[in-house]
């Protein structure tokens, strides 16, 4: 009985279909893994590039204007155009999608690393200098830890955006779950489109929660002193951050 109804949900082209999950689990897992690999690689490369760029921008005002201007322009370019612009360079390949995502993530990360470094209280910096800290030690043991909340906020935004933008990679056949969505569109295969879309959103939420957990582990001091008032102020700040970084989904 259950097998009969399960079969029929594929035949009837239902939106929700258990039989689809069972029969195509391998394909779904593969696409999800691809999706995660593309996202993690892109954001990882972007983090490695964002630090030197942010430090450069902090050091020289001219570099700061150039880097911030260039990343803002990159951020304005729609995803489809970004991938298309990179086609002559990479051809149809996964590097094309990764490069596009690195460029988007960079914008968010550089800006947030800079904000974080600028938010380090001057007293903390002066105290460290007074204690005889050199520039490198100051950066790694005082400034970066204090900049961590802003950095992690940027990392979360960049990662969630990357998960979503990876789907557009379907245009060059490297979109992870986006491939399943694109392939199912022409045949109106509803179960596949819905399942892949939901998996995408779940991936984004899981990544966000994972990074939030990591942030709490790395910055225990932001919680320790937390009263209701501080938390509320943080919520206000979050609303303002949200204002700054909203468009990255197309």
């Amino acid at each position: 009985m259950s097998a009969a109804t399960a079969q029929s949900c594929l035949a009837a082209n239902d939106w929700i279909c258990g039989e689809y999950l069972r029969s195509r689990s391998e394909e779904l897992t593969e696409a999800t893994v691809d999706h995660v690999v593309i996202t993690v690689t892109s954001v990882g490369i972007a983090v490695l590039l964002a630090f030197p760029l942010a430090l450069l921008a902090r050091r020289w005002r001219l570099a700061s204007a150039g880097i911030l201007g260039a990343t803002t322009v990159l951020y304005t370019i729609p995803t489809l155009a970004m991938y298309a612009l990179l086609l002559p360079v990479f051809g149809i390949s996964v590097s094309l999608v990764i490069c596009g995502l690195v460029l988007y993530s960079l914008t968010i990360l550089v800006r947030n690393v800079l904000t974080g470094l600028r938010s380090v209280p001057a007293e903390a910096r002066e105290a460290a200098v007074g204690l005889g800290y050199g520039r490198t030690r100051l950066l790694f043991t005082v400034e970066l830890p204090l900049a961590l909340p802003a950095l992690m906020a940027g990392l979360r935004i960049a990662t969630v955006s990357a998960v979503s933008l990876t789907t557009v990679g379907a245009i060059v056949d490297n979109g992870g779950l986006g491939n399943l969505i694109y392939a199912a569109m022409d045949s109106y295969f509803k179960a596949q489109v819905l399942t892949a879309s939901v998996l995408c959103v779940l991936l984004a939420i899981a990544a966000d929660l994972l990074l939030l957990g990591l942030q709490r582990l790395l910055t225990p001091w932001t919680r320790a002193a937390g009263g209701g008032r501080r938390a509320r102020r943080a919520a206000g700040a979050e609303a303002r951050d949200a204002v700054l970084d909203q468009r990255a989904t197309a």
Partner: protein
Amino acid sequence: MNAIVDAWAWLTTADHWSGRGGVWQRLAEHLQLTGLCLLISAAVALPLAAWLGHGGGRRLGGALAINISNAGRAVPTFAVLVLLTISPVGEHGDAPTIIALVLFGVPPLLTNAYVGVAEADRDVVEAARGMGMSPFQLLFRVELPLAYPLLMTGLRTAAVQLVATASLAALAGGGGLGRVITAGFDTNNTAQVFAGAVLVAGLALLVEGALALLQRLTDPHRRPNRRAPDDERPPASHRPATTTPEMETT
């Protein structure tokens, strides 16, 4: 380098611009879709934001403002477009594109306008209330003018978002400039893909630049100052008691 030369050749061929499916037609579709959906989004988002930010529902508004933009980031535009296209909505021409565009146009407008109104300087708002302004006067003569920079930021973000989303509509069979890119991919015509990308990216940058300029030109806070900058004025307590509180909000 070849790609740029080829793309230039494509762009300078008059045939590619005129007629059915030409660049002019696609551009017109793109602008129509974007403009229409920006109006609908603003009509939905702005009254809601004004009500939430001005009224007592501020706690609800804050949560909504943060979450709606986070959600907008986590949900892939491409997935929403395809889902709408293969749903019953897809039988009605441009309906899937319009609905998707409005869905992604509302969050930046709502969040920015809400934060702008809710965070309008409380002292000024209290002063206005003390002067006997009605809630409507308060909203239109104090809170909205104070929120103006953020309102415009929201409008700009939404407009760029809509231009980007409209280009993705081509992937799901909709119109707009994205069609130039997808058609190029379908026929393995790299020159056309690149040319289309230049057009889409150019349009996005143009919209961003034009609105940034408009924002700068119309910002009420940038009008020629009729009073000295704050730091040159004597502190309020030193001024004659007869001075009315300054209400320079327009």
